[in-house]
C-alpha cells in the first residue's frame, strides 16, 4: 500500500521513510513538504524555537537528485528530523533555549548533526528544550513552555512533554517529526520519551560526540535518538555515533549496525529487577507497568532475577552536586564578551558587565544551579560536597559493575509518575528533581539506557519502561526494548487538537 496524502506520510517512521524514498513510493521532497506543513500547523505545541523548512527541502532535493542519478543513499536518506536546539548548526541560530544565546549563529556544525546530514537526513528546525537542558518539564525555556500533544481522556487541560528534550518528545509524539535528537544528562531523553509514549535511547557515555553540543555537565552529557520505534532509534543512533577526535571523551570503538542485529529472543538472558527502585510513594500504575514489563520479558525467554543496587537512594543527591558543579564551570563562558547577550549598564566596568549580562541572560533555574555549583566548589566546601559526591558516584557505578555478574540488563520504570500539569512542580525545585530518580543512576555510571512505551494509565497518559545495560551494550538494551515493544502493542497516539 502506497501512502499518498500528507497525513499518511507524516505517520511514517524513519525506516519506512528511508525505504519508501529508496524504492520510489514517494519522493523525499513530498515527505519534507508534508512534515514542514505539519510543523507549521502545530505552532500551539511550541515545540520549535526556529523552523527551517528550506533546510528540509534542500536536503530532500539532494536525496531525490542522488537517487535519480543512481547514487548510493545514506542510512537516513530522505528523513527530515528535528534538532534539539542544544546542537550547534552552522548558520542557524542556536540558543540552548536561553536569552543569553539568543541570536547566536554558530560558524560550525556539531559533529552529531553533521553526521546526520551526511547520512541523508534533513532539518525541520531547532527544537525547544529546558534552558541549557536544565529541567524536567520544558518550563524553563526562555522561549516558552512546550505543551504535550497528549491530554487526559475527556479533558482539554495541558500537560508537560517532559524535559529537557521536551520539544523533541512533543514533536515526535505529535507526528510533526519522524524522529529527533535529544541529549540526556540525568534523564533528559528517557523522561520526556516516557511522558509522550515514544522511544528514547541514551547510549554509553562517549558514543556520540559532544563537539558542538552546548555543554551542561560534561561528564554526563550524552546525545541520543528519539523516535517512535526501537528500530528507528537503532538506525538513527548508528548515524549519530562514532569516534570524534574533537571530543576528548569520545569512545574510539567501532559503531555496530544495531538495527540489523535487533533480536527480541531473550532466551538465556537475565533481567535484573533492582529492589531499591521500589520506592515509597511510587504511583501504583507505574508499579503495574513494571509488573507487565517483567511478564513481557519473561515471555520473550528471559529469566527475571531480583538484584540490589544499594546506593540508588544517593544517586540523585550526588547528581545535584556534580551536575551543578560542572554547569557552573561550563557556563562561566557566557560573559558578554565573545558571543551572545551583552548587558552594559551606563558607566559600568568589565566586572559589572559580566554580572549584569549573566543576571539578564540566565533564567531562574539556571541561576539556581550555577549558585549551587559555585557553592559546592568553593573553598572549604569542596571536600564535604563535591569530593563526597564523586565518591558516592564511584559507589553507584560499582553497584552496577557488581550487578552485571547477576544479570544482562536491568528493567525499571522510567519515571515515578506520568506527565503532570504545567506549573504543578515548577515552584518546588526539589519535587521537580525527583522526576529523574530512576534515570539518574545510569547517567552517573555512564551506562546505555532507554525508555520504551509500556501502556496508557487510567487517565489515558503514556507510561514508559526503562532498560539499563552494560557499558557498550546498546544492543542488549535495544533487544530488550524490542521485546517489550512487540508485546506491549503500544499503538495509542494523541488525538489531534492543535
Amino acid at each position, binding site marked *: 500500500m502506497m501512502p499518498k496524502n500528507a497525513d499518511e506520510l507524516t505517520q511514517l517512521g524513519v525506516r519506512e521513510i528511508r525505504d519508501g524514498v529508496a524504492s520510489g513510493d514517494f519522493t523525499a521532497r513530498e515527505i519534507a513538504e508534508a512534515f514542514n506543513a505539519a510543523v507549521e500547523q502545530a505552532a500551539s505545541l511550541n515545540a520549535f524555537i526556529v523552523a527551517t523548512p528550506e533546510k528540509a527541502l534542500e536536503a530532500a532535493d539532494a536525496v531525490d537528485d542522488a537517487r535519480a542519478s543512481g547514487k548510493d543513499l545514506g542510512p537516513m536518506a530522505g528523513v527530515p528530523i528535528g534538532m534539539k536546539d542544544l546542537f550547534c548548526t552552522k548558520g542557524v541560530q542556536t540558543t540552548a533555549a536561553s536569552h543569553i544565546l539568543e541570536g547566536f549563529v554558530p560558524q560550525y556544525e556539531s559533529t552529531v548533526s553533521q553526521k546526520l546530514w551526511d547520512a541523508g537526513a534533513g532539518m525541520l528546525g531547532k527544537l525547544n528544550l529546558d534552558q541549557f537542558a536544565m529541567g524536567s518539564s520544558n518550563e524553563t525555556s526562555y522561549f516558552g513552555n512546550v505543551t504535550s500533544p497528549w491530554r487526559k481522556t475527556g479533558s482539554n487541560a495541558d500537560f508537560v512533554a517532559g524535559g529537557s528534550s521536551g520539544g523533541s518528545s512533543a514533536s515526535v509524539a505529535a507526528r510533526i517529526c519522524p524522529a529527533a535528537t535529544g541529549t540526556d544528562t540525568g534523564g533528559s531523553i528517557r523522561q520526556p520519551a516516557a511522558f509522550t509514549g515514544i522511544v528514547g535511547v541514551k547510549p554509553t557515555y562517549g558514543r556520540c560526540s559532544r563537539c558542538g553540543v552546548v555543554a551542561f555537565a560534561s561528564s554526563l552529557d550524552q546525545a541520543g535518538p528519539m523516535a517512535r520505534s526501537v528500530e528507528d532509534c537503532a538506525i538513527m543512533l548508528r548515524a549519530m555515533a562514532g569516534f570524534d577526535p574533537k571530543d576528548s571523551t569520545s569512545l574510539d570503538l567501532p559503531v555496530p549496525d544495531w538495527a540489523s542485529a535487533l533480536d527480541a529472543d531473550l532466551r538465556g538472558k537475565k533481567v535484573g529487577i533492582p529492589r531499591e527502585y521500589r520506592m515509597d510513594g511510587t504511583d501504583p500504575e507505574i508499579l503495574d507497568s513494571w509488573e507487565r514489563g517483567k511478564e513481557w520479558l519473561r515471555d520473550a525467554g528471559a529469566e527475571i532475577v531480583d538484584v540490589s543496587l544499594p546506593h540508588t537512594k544517593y544517586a540523585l543527591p550526588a547528581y545535584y552536586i556534580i551536575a551543578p558543579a560542572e554547569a557552573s564551570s561550563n557556563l562561566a563562558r557566557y560573559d558578554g564578551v565573545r*558571543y551572545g547577550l551583552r548587558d552594559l549598564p551606563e558607566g559600568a566596568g568589565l566586572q559589572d558587565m559580566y554580572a549584569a549580562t549573566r543576571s539578564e541572560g540566565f533564567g531562574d533555574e539556571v541561576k539556581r544551579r*550555577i549558585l549551587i555549583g559555585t557553592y559546592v566548589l568553593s573553598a572549604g566546601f569542596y571536600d564535604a560536597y563535591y569530593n563526597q559526591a564523586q565518591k558516592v558516584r564511584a559507589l553507584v557505578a560499582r553497584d552496577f559493575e557488581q550487578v552485571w555478574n547477576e544479570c544482562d540488563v536491568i528493567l525499571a520504570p522510567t519515571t515515578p509518575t506520568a506527565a503532570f500539569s504545567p506549573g504543578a512542580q515548577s515552584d518546588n525545585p526539589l519535587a521537580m528533581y525527583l522526576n529523574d530518580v530512576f534515570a539518574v543512576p545510569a547517567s552517573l555510571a555512564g551506562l546505555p539506557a532507554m525508555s520504551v512505551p509500556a501502556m496508557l494509565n487510567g487517565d489515558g497518559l503514556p507510561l514508559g519502561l526503562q532498560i539499563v545495560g552494560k557499558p557498550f551494550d546498546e544492543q542488549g538494551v535495544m533487544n530488550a526494548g524490542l521485546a517489550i515493544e512487540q508485546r506491549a502493542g503500544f499503538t495509542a497516539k494523541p488525538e489531534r487538537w492543535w
Partner: protein
Amino acid sequence: MSVDKPTVAKIASLARIEMDDAALERMVPELNNILGWIEQLGEVDTSAVEPMTAVIPNTLRLREDEVNADPKTGGDRREDILANAPVAEHGFFGVPKVIE
C-alpha cells in the same frame, strides 16, 4: 549546612550574577531546601573509596603537533570567532575600559 543571605550574596558575586535584595531573599530558602536534601550524602561511608574521575575508562589522547591539522579547531578562523561578538573592533573582542 545552611546558607544565609550574606553567603548567597557572596556566592552570587563569585558566580558573577547580579542579584538584588529581593532575589537574594527568594534564593536563600530555595538553596537551603536543596542543600538540606543533599546533606544525606554524609551518611555514606566513603572512607575507602576514591572519587570518580572518569565514568568510562578512557585514555587522554595527544594530537599531532601540527598547525591547522583540523581546520575546525586550527587557526586562521578570526572572522568566524568574532562573528558573534557583541562588539568586535580591529580584529579583537571589544570590552569596556578596565582600570585597576
